[in-house]
């Protein structure tokens, strides 16, 4: 099944803590939060590292490269869509949509690259498409 119609995407509920993430998304950049204490990147972004609880965390720009960890094509929806986790080259796995593709040809561990899709009145959402 190929994707035909565009879904209407709700805007993210932005908090003070993640404003920078969404500002960057508006400029076509995906940020991940990295801890300078333990050296690990995490997702979704937090000020305090969920691994070592250090507050020494910073934004780094993701390469936009990743692989599909898992996915599912939601058939029972007005416009079917693929939702899944992508393993970013930087390490963390993020929930996202796989778009602009033949849903029936998707596979786990397939290489994907970053794209952005507009939301209804908010910043665009980082999504992925086959690389």
């Amino acid at each position, binding site marked *: 099944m190929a994707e035909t119609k565009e879904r209407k995407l709700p805007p993210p509920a932005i908090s003070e803590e993640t404003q920078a993430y969404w500002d960057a998304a508006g400029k076509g950049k995906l940020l991940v939060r990295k801890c300078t204490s333990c050296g690990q990147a*995490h997702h*979704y972004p937090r000020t305090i590292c969920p691994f070592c609880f250090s507050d020494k965390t910073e934004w780094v720009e993701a390469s936009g490269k990743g692989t599909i960890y*898992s996915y599912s094509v939601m058939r029972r*929806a007005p416009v079917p*869509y693929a*939702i899944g986790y992508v393993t970013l080259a930087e*390490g*963390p796995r993020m929930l996202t949509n796989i778009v602009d593709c033949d849903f029936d040809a998707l596979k786990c561990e397939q290489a994907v690259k970053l794209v952005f899709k507009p939301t209804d009145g908010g910043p665009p959402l980082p999504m992925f498409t086959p690389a």
Partner: protein
Amino acid sequence: MSIKGKAYIAGIYEHPTRLAKDISLAQIHAQCAKGALEDAGLTKDDVDGYFCAGDAPGLGPMSMVEYMGLKVRHVDSTDTGGSSYVLHVGHAAEAIASGKCKVALITLAGRPRAEGMATGTVPRSRGGTPTPDDPFEFPYGPTVVNMYANCAMRHMYEFGTTSEQLAWIKVAASHHAQYNPHALLKDVVTVEEVVNSPMISDPLHRLDCCVITDGGGAIVVVAPEIAAKLKRPKVKLLGSSEFIKTQMGGKVDLTYSGARFTGAAAFAEAGVKPSDMKYASIYDSFTITVLMQLEDLGFCEKGKGGAFVADGNLISGTGKLPFNTDGGGLCNNHPANRGGLTKVLEAVRQLRGEAHPKVQVKNCDLAIAHGTGGSLGLRHGSATVILERE
């Protein structure tokens, strides 16, 4: 402190309705409470501890305590979704063991059918302050079914699990449901019927999904000295455990559930092992839920769940591990979209020898009830109890 032998399940009740158009939510809670207390041979004035979760109307336990006219000295409204009531049994035992109450009442009720809720196929709407995860999830359209489907997809990729193997779980549940007059779906189905039912969210078909029902249930947990005075068969708690499994800051692993930890801990507390279990109540929101939990609880090796559930191995009388002999959430009942309480109920019926004769396990003296609440593919709460007929 261990809860082993410190508390007993003395009363249970499952509301017979599956569509509650003409009764209120509070009314269902109270009818279930009344049913379970009468089953135990107790009255509401004996109740000194009350347990409920987010399905109860009002702020925590307060509205229902008032509605039912209870006077309680211990309350607990911990909400881990559908697993809450399995967790509450453990918490009730802890409260009883530490002297905080002697008769604990746990209730569940809901009316998702009567209220026309789009339970599994529409992202749950936001309410109040968004959770920190919300902006990174909600806009992408996670639903109950598509996130469990993500777990199934990865399980298939890593371990070669097939849709036919998953279908056997539904087939087994349907074999049991045919004997339950209250079951929503009473027809026995075949593997072919499951895999040929409409695809909802790959790889989960319509018949991989549980039913949506109104109704509820209640459980009464009591101190040993109370249980000794009652006339019902004695069902003793041997072990309990709970765990919250998350996305771990992005180190997402969909191949296992929190049951990996709750099973090990509950079995250790009980001093028994999976192979000792004569009967298993396993949360069955979807077929994949059952398969993963069976692996994680230690009934088979990780990745071998598909082979374990195939060929009728979960069917009472023919298989090695009779499961969900009331028909489970897949066929019988999943009241309020929360199936943990009914898992405990059927385990108690089996231990009492009060399951339907066609599905009653012979000499059923040890059983497990396990629940998963929330979303297996996002974050979930797991809870396990091990029960023994005394």
